[in-house]
């Protein structure tokens, strides 16, 4: 992972099209602004993981074969 240090008001580029600006930094967290082409989806990581995991959870199973065996 690339780690770098930035101050409030500074920004960085990912490729030619995506800009991330660090708007505000305090003890509560960081406020960032993202400028990116409309076709790029931006999601909080936990929401992205939940969406992917929901898709996996919706796949076909065979309920007849399932049995809970733990005590």
């Amino acid at each position, binding site marked *: 992972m690339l780690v770098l240090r930035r101050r409030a008001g500074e920004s960085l580029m990912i490729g030619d099209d995506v800009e991330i600006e660090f708007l505000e930094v305090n003890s509560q967290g960081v406020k960032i602004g993202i400028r990116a082409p409309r076709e790029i989806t931006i999601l*909080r990581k936990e929401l992205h993981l939940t*969406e*992917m995991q*929901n898709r996996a959870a919706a796949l076909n199973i065979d*309920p007849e074969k*399932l*049995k809970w065996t*733990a005590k």
Partner: protein
Amino acid sequence: MPLLATKYFGKLSCEPADCYDFPSGIPGYEGERTFVLLNLPGKEPLVFLQSVQTATLCFLALPILVADPQYRLSVSFEDLQILELELTRQPHIGGEVLVLALLAIEEGAAATANLMSPIVMNLKNRRAVQAIRCDFAYSHRQPLRGLDRSGTC
């Protein structure tokens, strides 16, 4: 009693008391607003969350305390608002809310429980959300012991 078309169990009659309203759907399935909780004999403690709109959408789930007896809830302010629960404290599992972990069973991989994003269902008003934690205290793919899927047991 209305008959409900289900993914795995044909047509079942369902009680309105088992229907839960998801005002914002769930991530990946935002249009799915009503799910029925199916408890089937011989399958306990496993439960099924069947979409009312879409017969082909059904999730397998476990009560969260079965998946992890030490589980501690962390429902966000926004989700407590959707559930119409008290905003100043976490709800009591079992008393006020039913909390489920969705299970994923993928070919050739261990069964996993999503402890990061539990389904929280208000037992009083039947409103429900997938309450996504942002603290990363629990995994979205927690390996699950105790689920036999060979059908031999």
